């Protein structure tokens, strides 16, 4: 599954960053690398973007970009 499919409050582990080029680089640099743990924090009032928490900080990302992050849920 991909990141934007998570429910609020769920945690996941990054499996792979599917994007290419600039998007991929940005995601990697911000710490979204394979194995990184992500908490799905909330969805913006208008339904997009989403807010996630990883590596001790908060990040906001559009759903269309989050589609490029393949994850697995941790219980």
């Amino acid at each position: 599954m991909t990141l934007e499919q998570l429910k609020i409050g769920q945690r996941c582990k990054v499996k792979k960053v599917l994007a290419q080029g600039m998007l991929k680089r940005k995601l990697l640099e911000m710490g979204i690398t394979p194995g990184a743990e992500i908490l799905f924090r909330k969805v913006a009032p208008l339904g997009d973007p989403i807010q996630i928490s990883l590596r001790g900080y908060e990040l906001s990302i559009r759903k269309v970009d989050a589609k490029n992050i393949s994850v697995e849920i941790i219980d």
Partner: protein
Amino acid sequence: MALRMAIAGNPNSGKTTLFNAITGSNARVGNWPGVTVEKKEGIYKKKVSGQTITLVDLPGIYSTSPYSPEGIIARNYILDEKPDIVINIVDATNLCRNLYLTTELLEIDIPMVIALNYIDVLEKDNVSFDVMVLENALGVKVIPISAHKKKGLDEIMNAAYKAAATKRQARSVLRRFSLGDSISKISSILRELNISSSDYIAIKLIEGDQLLLDSLNLNDDAKKNILDAINKIKKDHEDTEGLIADLRYDFITQNCQCAIKNSKKLKETTKTEKIDKTLTHKIWGLPIFFLIMFLMFFLVFGEFEIAGITVMMPGVLAAYGIEWVIAEIGELLARFLSFVNASDWAIGLVVDGIYGGVGAVFGFLPYILVMYLFISILEATGYMARAAFIMDRAFRKFGLSGKSFVPMLMGFGCSVPAVMGARTLENENERRLTILVTPFMSCGAKLPIWTFLTAAFFEGITATLVIFSIYVLGIIMAVITGVIFQKFVFKKQKTPFIMEMPPYRAPDVKTLLRILFEKFKSFAKKAGTIILVSSVIIWFLQSFSFSFKMVDNPNDSIMAKIGGIFAYIFKPMGFGTWQAAFAVLSGFVAKEVVVTTFGTLSGLGDPLENEGLMEQVKAWITSAGIFVSPLAAYCFMVFNLLAPPCLAAIGAISQEVKSKKWTAVILIYQLILAYLISLLIYGLGNLVMLII
């Protein structure tokens, strides 16, 4: 020679605060050649061992990747200009992500020290930080500091001075991993060619950095060897880019994270989560956002009457104050000049031309400063990121971002600060588009035009609807423009929206004051140059005839003749008279002047200064045949709404887009749109009336 130190670090790491604290008031703001990023240079307040130290504040970056102008600037500066030392500022409360950049900077052959900022936030929660752990892992000196409390500043500067004396040969932290052999192989090929920072370049080449490869000008032999080595890595790992980023973070979590001893959730984090529960709440987030925006707008432009007393908000109050001072000085100036028997044209040039023009523009200054103060507070506290988070979806459809909202709202007050406020947008296309559409928000100075003409040509509820429709039309045009530009002009570039949500922090008062002071300086400079010259030119065109004689009757001026030519252009919209054209042209000085011009042309006087005149001028304008019909007057309003804004705003536009081409694109687009839409409305309006 002065020692040069470059400060590099993530956005929100306290870089600007550190820079300001170190340099005091000795900063110079300029631009990096060719790009729209500010460059700040300053001098250390003290001297170290008698030596002067120059500091360069590099743009805030998350990495040195060539994907953003900021990243390219930072790395080009460090690689090409070779500062004596790099001071890497690291946010101790967000250690892991901040150190990603550090691992990259460490690969460059330049001495480095780390300024570990926000250490006081950790201390407040009794979280201890073992600096030695970090120093051992990274091999550079680490100095804990608190930029906003001005702690550790002397220490970091002394450490930087000491470290700058010894050369440093960089070794990548990635060498200890499986990729290490390949890195050292490519690195040694580069070093044989006398290329410095070989580890850094080797890794960037493995990541596929074409820009860097091209800039090296390698001979074919070396190029082949390097590409062979890279291809070998690619055989073993399908995703080298991912692997390298992954290894950097692995290194950080394994070796650096443990520097924080009794790690726990910081109070600041808990506080931020709590505040966000309200401010970005699913239901309350939006109303609170609008409330904050309204308050900001109100504090800048608000003015109301209560129990017969006029209450003015800070922006308006300051504006009235400045206006009064300007008028008084103008009066004195005129009296002085006539006292020394200056000739009429000299008085005209100084009082109306230079002083009038520059003074009118200075009237905007209070709005600009007060608005800047609020925008800076929104940014410094961290709310700006939340505003973008809340509004992004609504604005994205039009090629804008959530951050476009603030400048567009300000546009209803005054385009000048609004256009400047677009600076908060990082994406270049979004910034240009925001700047382009902001003047469509009907500004305060255009309001007198609407009220004047509607009162003359429309009655009762129709008059109110007409004014309302002008405001709505501006918004619709902004939306349509956004869609057009997104579809046809910016189609290539689709930038991802990946934005850090920094913790809420109290703004640093000194930094705020510094921003205001810098704003004031740059504004004064502009008023003294471009606006001064333009004012003189316009005054000349208005006051002289083609035989270079000063005219008493504006009908004989050069401007009137030019207006006569432009009148043909406006004919299809029903206001093809030289008076209307003249009014449009004079509106570029300031939009209120349009109404003043009608007063002057009628020979009655300025209706804005003498209320009694308003009715007479209105009567004159309806009877003089300047507009063939009320519809033509409406089209005149539409043209003024969409046409390029006043001189001050045009100045702000060219200053903010920092590109002659784009300034031209924006102004020409506005001009064409104004023409087409008023033409369309005139045509459709007449058609509808025919049918009715």
